């Protein structure tokens, strides 16, 4: 029992550290918001002025908003996880690795820290959504938050796994180009899932982000393709291997 409590406190300690560091690095919060805002205002407004999606009663800017929110979580989460590469270069992480705390707990603490970062960022974006006149109800807020939490768990774990396995800062670019962007573009964040060529449909179905976008679009505009509960269940399912992978990456970490 004492062991478990100690473990929980360790997770809390790591989480607390992440939150303190995050809230003190104002530049990071601000810069993490620039990208989504560009998508919403430049891309959303520009393309939205010329494009109308058939059978969709909302304007394009509103239509892509859930997708952009999820994208923001995706980027923040994966980047956060990959910071571990940097931490390992220096000795910041070793202090934690020699503490009497299981590697799984280290991962959980880090992961929850990253998810909290994403959530703080999401709350700012909700304010933007409100200003744009996107219908926010307690229901749509609750579903959106839950969705982003789950995607945050999944993507932070994945990012931490990359951070654990890869060892050079240069691999950042690799992951961004081969994982992060594809996951975003194949998610239906920018287009509807209906009427796609079969190959593209197949790829979108294998993308956890698809279900997140679908759930949030459903909660905000009633435009979901799958039932929302199924979307959430699908993301939760993706979380399991992601956490397992992250945990495995952390368990073999410690090489100096």
């Amino acid at each position: 029992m004492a062991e478990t409590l100690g473990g929980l406190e360790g997770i809390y300690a790591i989480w607390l550290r992440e939150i303190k560091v995050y809230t003190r690095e104002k530049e990071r919060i601000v810069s993490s918001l620039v990208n989504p805002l560009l998508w919403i205002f430049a891309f959303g407004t520009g393309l939205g002025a010329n494009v109308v999606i058939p059978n969709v009663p909302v304007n394009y800017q509103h239509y892509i908003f859930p997708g952009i929110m999820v994208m923001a979580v995706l980027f923040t989460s994966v980047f956060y996880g990959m910071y571990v590469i940097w931490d390992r270069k220096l000795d910041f992480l070793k202090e934690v690795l020699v503490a009497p705390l299981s590697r799984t707990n280290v991962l959980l603490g880090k992961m929850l820290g990253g998810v909290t970062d994403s959530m703080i960022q999401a709350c700012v974006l909700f304010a933007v959504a409100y200003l744009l006149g996107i219908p926010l109800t307690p229901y749509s807020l609750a579903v959106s938050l839950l969705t982003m939490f789950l995607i945050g768990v999944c993507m932070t774990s994945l990012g931490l796994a990359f951070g654990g396995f890869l060892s050079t800062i240069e691999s950042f670019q690799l992951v961004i180009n081969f994982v992060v962007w594809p996951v975003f573009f194949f998610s239906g964040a920018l287009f509807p899932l209906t009427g796609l060529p079969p190959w593209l449909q197949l790829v979108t179905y294998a993308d956890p982000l698809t279900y997140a976008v679908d759930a949030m679009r459903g909660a905000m505009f009633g435009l979901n393709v799958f039932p929302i509960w199924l979307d959430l269940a699908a993301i939760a399912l993706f979380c399991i291997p992601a956490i397992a992978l992250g945990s495995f990456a952390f368990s073999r970490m410690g090489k100096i």
Partner: protein
Amino acid sequence: MIETRELTKKFGPLTAVDGISLEIGEGEIFGLLGPNGAGKTTLISMLITLLPPTSGKATVNGFDVVARKSDVRKSIGVVFQEPSVDDLLTGRENLELHAMLYAMPREIRRKRMDEVLGLVELAGRADDLVKTYSGGMRRRLELARGLMHHPKVLFMDEPTLGLDPQTRKHIWEYILRLAKEENITIMLTTHYLDEADAVCRKVAIIDFGRIAATGTPKRLKHDVGGDIVAIKQKGFDPKCLEGLGFVAKFEAKADGVEITVRDAHKNLQKLLSEIGDIESVEVREASLDDVFFKYTGKKYREEGGEGGWAERVMSSAGR
């Protein structure tokens, strides 16, 4: 307190630590000396459970470093070679997190924090962000943190690397005081042989992953075989040293010779009269540098590591 038997670590074809056997008693300050890449950090990494040995055994505080990782971790404090305090946290916050990670009883945390902060004289700056600290202050904070949870054994990898001489002197003073006041066993590595000589009760010289020599600094220096007489002389002729029983060995230099002489204070007169006219003479006791040379055949240079850790703090500030 620390015991290793035939401890070995291989990275592919490279053997970083090659069958090292050591025994370090309670309360001892033990220094691992050697050039970069000799295997010191790898050895410590195995002892602090960050790296599994390829073969051999090691125990710390009686616990096996592979089978009883968690117990080992509870018994030890570590001061890493590279900076590991968070600059975006205050000194006190760094210690608080440490106390939480080690699940220290809540009631003693505050008291212990004040105690270690006082010990390293950081109490006045405890609530400032670490990024405003100097290199020496960071190092002292790391020392304080390593001691927070009352470790039985403290590992320190290059605790003074990259610091200015003044700060180095202070850090060593703290270390000596700590060892005494807290009765902990300390294993450290250092580049600075003179400092190791002053601080460590026992040292081991490591080269190519093996122990070249081990013992008290005094013993090792004695084994060099005498004092060092450095003579500057144009056209030094080795023949004049023939038949002098007190000359243990000599090494010709560009501008003279370095001679290892038994009981130099007694034999200097005779030596100089044999050599003849000289430009200058300097007599010094054998140092650990000479010991190092004797066992490794290499001159000891105080290389700067892979770049001082302080510089790396600076370059990491943009993190």
